[in-house]
């Protein structure tokens, strides 16, 4: 007897078949000796089990209990792939963020250098007979270099004689 027919017989014994099919299977069992023997055997087992089966008591509700089982099955069904990644995928995974961070760091450094470039780091020289006074008006965003005669003898040479260096606002250092 095929396994499907055995299951049909078992379902008939358990009363799980629709009425029409139950009548058809019941007629077939009555006519088939092997099926009749199987139904008789299953009926005996059913009667024996119905009296000896212990009732399972659950702490959880029925729906919650089965949903836990379903979630556990779904978790175990998801098996991560262990296929080796191609080299470019591995490179992208680690190097791309690193390169991005490096590029951002370079950009930040560049912008900070430009923003932090002091506007008062003048290195200047004046012709002899002249002097320069440098001052910064931060609020007006203006640097002024005021040139004036220092009262000394005028010099026809254009070569500068004094190097003036201002390392911070208001601090002027003359270098001979």
């Amino acid at each position: 007897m095929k396994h499907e027919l055995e299951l049909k017989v078992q379902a008939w014994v358990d009363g799980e078949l629709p009425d029409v099919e139950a009548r058809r299977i019941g007629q077939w069992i009555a006519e088939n000796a092997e099926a009749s023997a199987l139904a008789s055997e299953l009926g005996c087992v059913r009667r024996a089990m119905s009296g000896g089966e212990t009732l399972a008591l659950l702490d959880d509700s029925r729906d919650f209990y089965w949903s836990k089982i379903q979630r556990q099955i779904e978790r175990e069904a998801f098996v991560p792939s262990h296929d080796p990644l191609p080299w470019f995928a591995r490179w992208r995974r680690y190097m791309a963020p690193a390169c991005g961070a490096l590029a951002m760091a370079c950009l930040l450094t560049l912008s900070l250098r430009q923003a932090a470039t002091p506007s008062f780091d003048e290195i200047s020289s004046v012709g002899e007979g002249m002097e320069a006074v440098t001052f910064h008006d931060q609020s007006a965003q203006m640097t002024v270099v005021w040139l004036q005669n220092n009262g000394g003898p005028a010099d026809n040479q254009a070569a500068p004689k004094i190097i003036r260096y201002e390392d911070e606002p208001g601090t002027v250092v003359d270098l001979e």
Partner: protein
Amino acid sequence: MRKAPRVLATAFFLFAAAAAASAADLKLEARLIWGANDEKGGPNCKPVDAVLASKLNRSFKWKGYFEITNEIASIPVNKTRDLRMSPECTLRIKNLGGSRVEINFIGQGKEVHKGSYTLAPPNWLVLGGDCTNNTAWFIGLRANDATSPNIITKN
């Protein structure tokens, strides 16, 4: 993880743009200004704009500031341009890169002043000195991003 290439491309683009901007030509404007206590000036005198006039007024005693010359130049990196502000006064400006310039102020054919400065917009660099009749001259320099048809392209 899928956003990483996009982030990388954006960062690279920004970095390249910043690098390109730092190596771009320096556009600057230079104004020769006359300062006097006469608030009306002469018939050919054009008052400087109110913003610059207020900046000069904060530091100097003169009441009126008048624009004599206004030049705009575009100077490539490591190149030098001469700006003739008046028949006696020339500015020789070299773009050192990174908003740095070397300025050689030549008056009546002689080097009067030479210096290296940072022209960081919107800051003004003003060279100045006394003039006759209790007046003064000023040369205002400022890096300027705006383009102008008056660009000087060669010496």
